[in-house]
């Protein structure tokens, strides 16, 4: 056994260990530094790239500015100015300047001397006066003192102008000296003006060059809460890479540097430093690594199916970044009551500025309109959509109207009868449809009597005329007879018709007499209907009925079927089916007055987690919220399993419609945005939102152009637009019903329409709305006109300036403007055929706003481009010289006052 050698620790060499461990330490330090500064800061390369981009941009501008400076004309101008400057500076050095300066010195002495003398004299005068006053009071002889006072007073009078002159001379000399400096400064300023742009750009360039790379963040308070329900700060660092987002000039830059679309309109009202980005765009605000962290989706192996949402992705967490049109869903976090997001945007500069009306959230607007009008809230409880009228017709007296045989087919396949119907397909079997029909027939009540006598022999040709004249086509298409290019929905927001196509109406109608009664007074038969009363005479309604009853073949119900429908068991089954499928969500049905909505609440659907969504057997559908929703709307039965029967009917939506509805559904989130981020909607904004809804519900826009949209019926008046319903609010002109007519008149008129243009065949129907509804429409027009106060007073006839009224009468007479050539005035009708006439002057004082009449008379074409009313006052030769001194402005007032004086009060 070899002796154990003992080496004491002190003598052992640790060099190797020290060396290796210190190398590891050095390596770790280097790695840590590298990792910290490079690999964990991917944003640095974006900032550097943007820095370069901006630098290049400014340098280009600078080069341009310098090139402009280098132009011979500019250089020549600069040379001259510099010459001038040199002269001015030399002049300051020259003898003239020296002379002027010494002149100032001299005059200073003179001025000082004279003013000193004056002051001394005045002191002496004060003293002399004291002695004089004292002597007089003491009753002494004061002749000497008085003489002294007089002498000094005389001296003062003489010295004062001298002192003033000397002072003025001094100021004058000083001014001459200053003039030298002023000239120099003036030239310097001129030189600066010319070179200002390039100098500013140089400063900017310097600033860019020396700018540090740094994380840019916005801190938002009061939005996020932690698990303990305590507010925590939200931090958005998106601006670290999206550097051009709130700056003009980067519209064409590559992402992520591009300017935000509609920047001024959107970021102008939602400044980034107050709102951040994730409030609308969601995603991870704190993250600085795009793909993995901000977006939350990473590319996945393609499945071939379900890639309609931006390619195949694998979701890393529940609420990733909202991209594309889905961002629009965020608008409703705050703007809950709004029905659209149309905003005026100024384009161009200076004289070329044009205001363009842009809908900033068009997909959401479409989704919102569809959500309401397809009746989604009828089954789905949703916050903000309670208490809405049912979208389908009431069925409480349906048996009087339709053939049961037709109804069975209809319930099974609505779209095979009406291609653009809003009624969805429930996928019912014939037996089930028959059962539902049985219940609906059984619950039906008799109609109340409607006065009027139906003439079964009325002429259908006459009826066709009535159909085209009175305004039926404002809402109803009849594609078999009249060409129709597209579905008739509010502003083409969906491929649906607002009212049924009447091409095949006779197929379903059981009894022509029912149709006659309906046409005479729809609200008497169905109080909740939106169909208005067109005030048809018995004859008109009879002929119209005759015309409509020619459209298609009646689908007669066999006696056997009638007998079957009376079976108690079938009726009972029908009731259960109606309860199961929720027909009462859209239709009023007896026995279901208090039934609850049948479908799940969707008030927070936008934040549904993936694990809460059942994909059933639909393995092809990609596991994302977007895909789940898309396919659910496209085919509501797709996630049905043996355990869960889904009940939602198929609305037969196009892909675009599904996407719009999906944005709408995404907008249902329970986020409570603090008040400080919300601007309380102004009264006007609210009035517009509410009013717009009423005008859409009752399809006012089917006939009238409102807010520059609608007026569908006008295609029937090609070449004779003056016979179409009048436009009410144009965007291109300044025509706005609210600024045109008196609010009281409008409210009255809506309640009881009376002809204003008697030559029009088309009729303003009686809608039979409530005071509240009409009040909303009146307020809507007032708000659209930008008026705070709805009323405008009209002076009574006797308070008008009689001289003006008389002058107006002369101006309106045949000798001058011949207004009566077209305008009616009470019973006085113009010559010629009525379609060439214009509204009654006698109505003006009750109908028109005096202020508007001025604007209108000044230039009607500007108010309503293309109107038949010609412009009378376009130049200074317009008015006759022998009335009111030829002053056109006074003549306008005279005409207005004359019009206001007419008519019975």
């Amino acid at each position: 056994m070899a002796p154990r050698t003992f080496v004491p620790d002190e003598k052992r060499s640790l060099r190797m260990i020290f060396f290796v461990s210190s190398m590891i330490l050095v390596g770790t330090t280097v790695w840590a530094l590298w990792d910290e500064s490079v690999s964990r800061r991917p944003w640095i390369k974006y900032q550097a790239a943007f820095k370069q981009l901006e630098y290049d941009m400014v340098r280009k501008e600078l080069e341009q500015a310098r090139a402009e400076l280098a132009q011979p004309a500019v250089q020549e101008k600069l040379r001259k100015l510099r010459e001038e400057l040199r002269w001015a500076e030399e002049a300051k050095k020259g003898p003239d300047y020296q002379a002027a300066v010494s002149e100032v010195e001299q005059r200073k002495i003179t001025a000082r001397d004279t003013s000193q003398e004056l002051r001394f004299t005045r002191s002496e005068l004060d003293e002399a006066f004291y002695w004089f006053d004292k002597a007089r009071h003491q009753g002494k002889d004061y002749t000497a003192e008085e003489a002294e006072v007089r002498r000094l007073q005389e001296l003062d009078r003489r010295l004062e102008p001298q002192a003033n002159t000397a002072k003025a001379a001094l100021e004058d000399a000083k001014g001459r000296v200053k003039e030298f400096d002023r000239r120099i400064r003036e030239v310097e300023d001129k030189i600066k003006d010319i070179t200002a742009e390039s100098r500013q750009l140089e400063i900017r360039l310097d600033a860019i060059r020396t700018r540090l790379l740094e994380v840019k963040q916005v801190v938002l308070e009061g939005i996020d809460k932690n698990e303990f329900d305590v507010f925590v700060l939200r931090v958005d660092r998106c601006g670290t890479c999206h550097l051009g987002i709130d700056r003009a000039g980067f519209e064409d830059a590559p992402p992520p540097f591009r300017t935000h679309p509609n920047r001024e309109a959107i970021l102008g009202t939602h400044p980034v430093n107050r709102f951040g980005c994730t409030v609308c765009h969601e995603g991870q605000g704190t993250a600085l690594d795009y793909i993995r962290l901000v977006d939350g989706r990473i590319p996945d192996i393609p499945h071939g199916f379900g890639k309609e949402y931006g390619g195949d992705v694998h979701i890393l967490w529940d609420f990733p970044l909202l991209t594309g049109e889905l961002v629009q869903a965020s608008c409703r976090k705050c703007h809950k009551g709004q029905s659209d997001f149309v905003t005026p945007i100024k384009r161009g500069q200076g004289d070329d500025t044009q205001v363009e009306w842009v809908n900033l959230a068009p997909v959401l607007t479409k989704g919102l309109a569809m959500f309401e009008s397809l009746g989604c809230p009828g089954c789905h409880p949703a916050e903000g959509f309670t208490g809405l009228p049912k979208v389908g017709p009431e069925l409480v007296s349906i048996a009087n109207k339709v053939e049961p045989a037709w109804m069975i087919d209809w319930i099974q396949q609505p779209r095979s009868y009406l291609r653009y119907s809003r009624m969805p397909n429930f996928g019912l079997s014939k037996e089930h449809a028959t059962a539902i029909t049985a219940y609906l027939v059984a619950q039906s009540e008799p109609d109340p009597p409607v006065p009027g006598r139906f003439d079964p022999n009325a002429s259908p040709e006459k009826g066709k005329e009535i159909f085209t004249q009175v305004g039926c086509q404002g809402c109803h298409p009849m594609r078999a007879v009249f060409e129709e290019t597209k579905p008739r929905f509010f502003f083409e927001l969906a491929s649906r018709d607002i009212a049924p196509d009447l091409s095949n109406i006779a197929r379903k109608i059981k009894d022509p007499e029912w149709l006659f009664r309906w046409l005479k007074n729809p609200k008497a038969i169905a109080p909740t209907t939106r169909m208005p009363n067109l005030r048809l005479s018995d004859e008109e309604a009879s002929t119209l009925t005759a015309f409509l009853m020619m459209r298609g073949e009646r689908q007669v119900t066999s006696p056997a079927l009638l007998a079957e429908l009376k079976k108690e068991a079938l009726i009972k089954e029908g009731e259960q089916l109606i309860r199961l499928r929720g027909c009462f969500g859209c239709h009023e049905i007896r026995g279901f007055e208090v039934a609850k909505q049948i479908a799940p609440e969707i008030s927070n659907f936008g934040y549904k987690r993936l694990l809460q969504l059942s994909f059933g057997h639909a393995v092809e559908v990609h596991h994302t919220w977007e895909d789940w929703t898309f396919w659910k709307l496209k085919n509501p039965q797709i996630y049905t399993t043996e355990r869960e029967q889904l009940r939602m009917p198929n609305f037969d939506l196009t892909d675009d419609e599904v996407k719009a509805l999906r944005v709408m559904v995404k907008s249902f989130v329970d986020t409570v945005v603090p008040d400080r981020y919300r601007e309380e909607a102004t009264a006007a904004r609210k009035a517009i939102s509410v009013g717009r809804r009423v005008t859409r519900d009752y399809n006012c826009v089917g006939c009238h152009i409102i807010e520059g949209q609608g007026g569908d019926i006008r295609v029937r008046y090609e070449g004779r637009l003056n016979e179409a319903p009048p436009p009410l609010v144009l965007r291109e002109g300044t025509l706005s019903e609210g600024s045109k007519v008196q609010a009281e008149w409008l409210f009255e008129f809506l309640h009881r329409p009376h002809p204003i243009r008697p030559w029009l065949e088309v009729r303003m129907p009686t809608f039979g709305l409530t005071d509240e509804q009409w009040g909303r429409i009146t307020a809507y027009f007032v708000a659209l006109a930008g008026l705070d106060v709805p009323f405008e007073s009209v002076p009574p006839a006797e308070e008008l300036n009689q001289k003006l009224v008389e002058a107006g009468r002369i101006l309106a007479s045949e000798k001058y403007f011949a207004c009566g050539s077209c305008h009616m005035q009470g019973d006085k009708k113009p010559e010629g055929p009525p379609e060439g006439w214009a509204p009654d002057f006698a109505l003006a004082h009750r109908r028109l706003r005096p202020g508007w009449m001025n604007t209108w008379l000044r230039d009607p074409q500007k108010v309503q481009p293309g109107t038949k009313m010609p412009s009378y006052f376009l130049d200074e030769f317009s008015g006759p010289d022998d009335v009111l001194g030829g002053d056109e402005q006074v003549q306008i007032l005279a005409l207005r006052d004359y019009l206001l004086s007419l008519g019975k009060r």
Partner: protein
Amino acid sequence: MRKSVGIFVLAGFGLGLWALATVPADSAAGGTITGAVKFAGDPPPPKEVPATKDKHVCGKTPIYDESLVVDKGTKGIQWAVVSVQGAKGKWNGKEASIDQKGCVFHPHVVVTPPGKLTVLNSDGVLHNFHSYGKANPAMNRAQPGFRKKMEVEFNKPEIVKITCDAHSWMLAWIVVTDDPFVAVTNEQGNFKIENVPPGTYTLEVWQETLGTTTQKVTVEAGKTATADFTLKK
């Protein structure tokens, strides 16, 4: 030998003169296009329009529909607008005007260079000058009876429809053109366009109810080219 040189010199001189005379130094050296625009088929009989208004003025002379006027004998179409497409030239200080007389626009078709157009009212009743331009801003100017004359502006070349809303039958067309090579056919359907710079052009004829027809035409200096059109409904 000398003689022949002299002849050459003379000939050269002569050639030079000829060249000088034919070089299109100004439009006077152009050619002329004439022709007729005819109607295929039976000429429609003149249609009288009843004056329903201001009869004391409008009812004095019968008013005829001028939208398609065809001469019975020659079948020539009046009021067709013939224009040489692409020919460039300058207007010779032409000032156009249109009158409203007997509640009819006179003439029915006016050719005018861009700029001011004088509108006369010889009737002494209210007329209004309502234009439906697309390139030119639409206008609707009242011309009350006391205003015998007013000026309107058309600055862009196009054919503008004019109506009077006070008298629904009144209709006129203003042909605004940059180049002066536009003619309107007369009662026999004949037209003549002079001083057209030599070249081959598309000749276009436009008639308000019959639309547009074209044909090629070659213009030689100092000569007259003929181009006839036959339009049908």
